[in-house]
């Protein structure tokens, strides 16, 4: 969508009802320029993505006062996410050219960040490449100052887990400075940016919101002919397709290289193509210009079934929602069919020459995360291993025998602060096996631990490989949540979909309950908060000895003594647990 589309969309806010949207996000916006248009663009992007934005804007030129005043609306308002964007440009004087002002504001931001429960995204300052110093860029004091400021922002982010720095120069670089700054706007209206820049900025910011509400995309599903290579393999043969050192084959080679980078950062790849499986297998085997191998794909559908059915079966096989999938296909008809039948799937326009593929792929800002974990980097490999496991499962007769044969081991950690980034990320990304769908940032997790609560997590592996840290329970100290001293509350219990169906959750909760028993906790309170997606977790509490309380349907309670006397029969004894 373009700027004007977002502007039109933003007007719907007046009549929009927040309960009609998939999610509501409260946003604080702090800038040092006239930001109304930017705010409208952000509202438009959010509404177009089924998110109701509740935006608080600091009055023009009062950011430093509101940041400092603990009684300001800004400081008292608890926003899910805060965007801070201070403009310094090469063409106009700025209060930020005073180091004292910057230091003062930075200190106030740090205080704001420490008080804030939400995420804070700070835009880096835009580098001043144009000045009287011409080619001697580094001699320009403004350039050096901005460089110094940006390093301090990075330091702020490094010491505060709820702060992330948005590299504004990346955006200016993509658009080009002459398309990013609006010179008349700078002097006449104090709107330093073009509409196109603000639309792009709003999209980038929204990508953080998407990460916050668990809406990031996890999987790229690809067509083959004219998408992964040029031409039709069934007609041209494995060596006849365009894939190699010359144009257009080199455009496809580099598109594959970019996809491999996505795979290596944790985005799953899959194939959905109308082709003879034998032709495709032969191409992968015989054409040595392939960058991607079959091993990089976590699910492969090369058949003559319709692409809609294939999409559904890929989602099922990978245990991910259709709404976490992106479908890339050069054929407009197939795109239109998938988009119409499966509106949850993101289907970008892919009618373009192959030389534009890689840039278009980079330009999809659907995969933003607050940080990258080791699990992300290993995910592609893990899913590929899962495909091998499935091959074994198809041979095994009894599912319990099969699970036993996997040799699953689980290493359980309790209150390991170094795991905070991964634990926070799990709360943000897990939708299906999740009892309460509470989203937390790294700082929340650290705070829980500091406040005498318990966070259990399990790292799982089996004979095929390592799944990483995939299961989490946060148990709150009863006294801290208005319960008795010898009671506790299961605030969060969730498990990554890639290990579902192995009895891991049973073994894990069993361990948690036994640990609580050892700590002389008598009762464990829990909740199941239903969402559109967490059906797989629906019966979990009931199956593990929890009973519904008279209070309401969502509230459960477990008598720990009774559980210890009669533990859940489903606990898989074959799982080896190392605490």
């Amino acid at each position, binding site marked *: 969508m373009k700027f*004007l589309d977002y502007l039109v969309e933003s007007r719907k806010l007046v009549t929009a009802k927040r309960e009609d949207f998939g999610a509501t996000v409260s946003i604080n916006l702090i800038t040092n320029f006239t930001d109304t248009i930017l705010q409208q663009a952000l509202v438009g992007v959010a509404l177009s993505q089924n998110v109701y934005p509740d935006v608080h804007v600091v009055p023009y030129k009062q950011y430093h006062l509101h940041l400092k005043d603990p009684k300001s609306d800004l400081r008292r308002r608890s926003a899910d996410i805060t965007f801070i964007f201070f403009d310094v440009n090469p063409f106009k004087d700025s209060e930020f050219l005073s180091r004292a002002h910057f230091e003062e504001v930075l200190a106030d931001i740090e205080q704001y960040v420490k008080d804030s429960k939400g995420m804070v995204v700070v835009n880096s300052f835009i580098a001043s490449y144009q000045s009287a110093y011409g080619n001697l860029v580094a001699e320009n004091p403004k350039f050096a100052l901005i460089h110094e400021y940006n390093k301090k922002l990075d330091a702020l982010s490094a010491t505060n887990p709820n702060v992330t720095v948005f590299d504004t120069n990346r955006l200016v670089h993509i658009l080009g400075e002459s398309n990013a700054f609006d010179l008349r706007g700078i002097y006449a209206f104090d*709107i330093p940016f073009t*509409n196109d820049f603000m639309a792009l900025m709003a999209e980038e910011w929204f990508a953080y919101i998407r990460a916050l509400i668990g809406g990031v995309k996890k999987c790229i599903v690809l067509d083959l002919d004219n998408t992964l290579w040029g031409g039709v393999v069934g007609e041209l043969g494995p060596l006849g397709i365009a894939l190699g050192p010359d144009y257009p084959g080199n455009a496809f080679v580099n598109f594959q290289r970019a996809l491999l980078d996505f795979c290596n950062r944790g985005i799953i790849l899959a194939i959905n193509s109308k082709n003879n499986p034998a032709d495709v297998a032969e191409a992968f085997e015989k054409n040595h210009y392939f960058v991607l191998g079959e091993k990089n794909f976590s699910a492969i559908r090369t058949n003559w079934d319709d692409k809609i059915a294939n999409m559904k079966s890929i989602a099922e096989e990978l245990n991910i929602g259709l709404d976490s999938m992106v479908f890339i296909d050069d054929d407009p008809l197939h795109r239109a069919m998938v988009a119409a039948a499966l509106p949850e799937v993101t289907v970008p326009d892919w009618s373009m020459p192959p030389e534009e593929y890689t840039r278009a792929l980079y330009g999809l800002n659907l995969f933003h995360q607050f940080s990258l974990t080791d699990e992300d980097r290993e995910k592609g490999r893990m899913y590929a291993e899962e495909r091998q496991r499935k091959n074994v499962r198809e041979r095994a007769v009894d599912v319990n025998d099969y699970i036993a044969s996997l040799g699953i081991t689980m290493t359980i950690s309790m209150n390991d602060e170094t795991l905070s980034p991964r634990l926070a990320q799990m709360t943000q990304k897990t939708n299906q096996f999740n009892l309460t769908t509470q989203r937390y940032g790294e700082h929340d997790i650290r705070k829980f631990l500091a406040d005498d609560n318990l966070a259990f997590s399990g790292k799982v592996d089996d004979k095929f490989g390592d799944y990483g840290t995939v299961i989490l329970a946060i148990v709150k100290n009863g006294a801290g949540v208005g319960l008795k001293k010898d009671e506790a509350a299961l605030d969060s219990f969730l498990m990554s979909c890639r290990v579902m169906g192995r009895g891991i959750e049973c073994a894990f909760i069993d361990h948690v309950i036994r640990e609580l028993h050892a700590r002389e906790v008598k009762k464990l309170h829990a909740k199941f908060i239903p969402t559109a997606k967490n059906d797989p977790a629906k019966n979990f509490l009931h199956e593990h000895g929890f009973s519904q309380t008279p209070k309401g349907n969502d509230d459960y309670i477990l008598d720990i003594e009774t559980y210890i006397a009669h533990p859940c029969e489903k606990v898989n004894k074959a799982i080896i647990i190392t605490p």
Partner: protein
Amino acid sequence: METLKKTFSSVLGIPVEKITPDLSPENTPSWDSLNAIVLITEIEKTFKVKFGYDEAMAAKTFGDVVALVKSKSTEFHG
């Protein structure tokens, strides 16, 4: 002309058929100072023209804007 009307319609949130030469900030509440800026910048982008600050500010009605764009753009066909 249709493109220009569409831009006005999107920015001001009024139907295309309501956009007449005498449309002005006086008879259109959504034509405020902020949307005036958006109108200028979007029209400049669409027609690949650049208005001087004074001439842009002097355009008080839709009719004025049409005349201004005509005077700047060779592509514009009224």
